[in-house]
């Protein structure tokens, strides 16, 4: 089996338009969540989000291309471009067929659905633009990345709600490990900050109108974000041979299904995912120094996740650090795990643990070191990244310093 390393990372989200900008913001505990800018805001009761402000697609793409690019595709393409550039990888014709990609998204081209439903239902138009279907399809972003970078190997999109990115990265990891591909791009994106997207979440009554405060006793729910995160995964040998900078080694992945409730999290499903990932990584629980939590800021997720970590790690749960960067960039839904993996890279590479900001009052049901409000210097050699989706599908990744 091949060892699998990460040699490139790219992102765009409410905290920054690149990995360095995002990590800087995480280090400083910046808040990327703010008042939403969108039409019909007065008809929404939730008016905050982790929105990428003043984003001008025409600054990045020509108009002909934009006719085919939903916002989620635009964000994915930008993150992919940064990741490939950073990796220094040249996808030659020879490498092209041995390179693939797995991307995760929950909603795909939501903006395109929203705009065109409006046009046919509200405005009563009887005709829509001919590219609506190729623009909104869930795999559009992955397909455009493959075209932009000549990626001809195994490529697909996975959709498991809030765990989509972790599933995508985990599957890509397995493909490189097994030898199915030499190089894989992996990550995910979502751009659900549309009127309809927010309306739908409002209905569930789990959204906060004020802030995302994971693990805090006075937490009041989740806050939606948007953005993309993409990584370049390749074999350790390949990376070494071409002298690439290795950001971290991916050493474990596991996924479970709760088979329980369509929205309520399940402690046992989470525990099984964590234990499975540690087993896959051949690590003991005390090897983990930092966990990037799913940490949505809802009453149910945070207490269930803490209970799961306490059960899976035993006494070591009190020694490790666990933070939720959703407090800063919001919940990127299908893109969450990818952007959050950056916090794991920062912990392993720079020895900086991203904080859980907005933390005000300890909750006895979340009695772990959640790195409240201020980033911390600490040496960690292995990290875990949790994603527990609606629908009870869980995916956990394990990374190691190199």
């Amino acid at each position, binding site marked *: 089996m091949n060892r699998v390393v990460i040699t490139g990372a790219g992102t765009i989200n409410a905290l920054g338009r690149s990995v360095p900008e995002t990590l800087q913001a995480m280090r400083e505990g910046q808040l990327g969540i703010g008042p939403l800018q969108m039409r019909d805001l007065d008809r929404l009761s939730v008016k905050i989000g982790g929105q990428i402000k003043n984003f001008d697609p025409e600054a990045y793409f020509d108009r002909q291309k934009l006719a085919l690019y939903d916002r989620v595709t635009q964000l994915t393409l930008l993150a992919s471009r940064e990741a490939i550039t950073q990796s220094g990888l040249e996808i030659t014709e020879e490498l092209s067929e041995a390179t693939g990609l797995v991307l995760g998204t929950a909603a795909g081209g939501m903006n395109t659905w929203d705009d065109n439903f409006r046009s046919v239902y509200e405005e009563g138009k009887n005709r829509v633009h001919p590219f609506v279907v190729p623009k909104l399809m869930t795999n559009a972003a992955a397909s455009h990345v493959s075209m932009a970078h000549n990626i001809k190997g195994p490529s697909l999109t996975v959709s498991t709600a809030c765990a989509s990115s972790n599933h995508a990265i985990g599957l890509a990891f397995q493909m490189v490990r097994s030898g199915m591909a030499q190089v894989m791009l992996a990550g995910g994106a979502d751009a659900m900050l549309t009127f309809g997207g927010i309306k739908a979440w409002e*209905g569930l009554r*789990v959204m906060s*109108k004020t802030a995302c405060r994971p693990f805090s006793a006075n937490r009041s729910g989740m806050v939606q974000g948007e953005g993309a995160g993409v990584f370049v995964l390749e074999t350790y040998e390949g990376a070494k041979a071409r002298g690439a900078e290795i950001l971290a080694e991916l050493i474990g992945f596991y996924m479970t299904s709760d088979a329980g409730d369509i929205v309520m999290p399940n402690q046992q499903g989470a525990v099984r995912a964590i234990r499975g990932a540690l087993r896959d990584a051949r690590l003991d629980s005390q090897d983990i120094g930092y966990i990037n939590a799913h940490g949505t800021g809802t009453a149910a997720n945070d207490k269930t996740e803490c209970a799961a970590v306490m059960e899976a790690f035993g006494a070591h749960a009190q020694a490790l650090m666990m933070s939720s960067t959703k407090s800063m960039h919001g919940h990127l839904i299908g893109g969450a795990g990818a952007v959050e993996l950056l916090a794991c890279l920062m912990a392993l590479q720079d020895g900086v643990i991203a904080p859980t900001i907005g933390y005000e009052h300890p909750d006895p049901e979340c009695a772990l070191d959640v790195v409240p409000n201020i980033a911390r210097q600490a040496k960690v050699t292995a990290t875990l990244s949790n994603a527990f989706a609606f629908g009870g599908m869980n995916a956990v990744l394990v990374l190691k310093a190199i």
Partner: protein
Amino acid sequence: MSVKNKVIQIIAEQGLLDMADVSLSATLEDLGIDSLGVVESIFAIEEEFDIEVPFNANAPQESEFDISSVATIVSAVETLVAEQT
């Protein structure tokens, strides 16, 4: 139908019960209504009375809308309906 009876009807429907089996002192939990059922009942109440119910599933006890029993829900809805007119 009175506000009280309409609310009881909505709750009964959610719990798959007869209206007669929904006592004012019962909690939603007693009636077998889980968290998704609570959210769905509140949605039905909003639609029925054309009101906005202030309720966050993350902090039910802190919401202005008291769902601790059928009686508190009825009284909260009566207040909201009265405020509206």
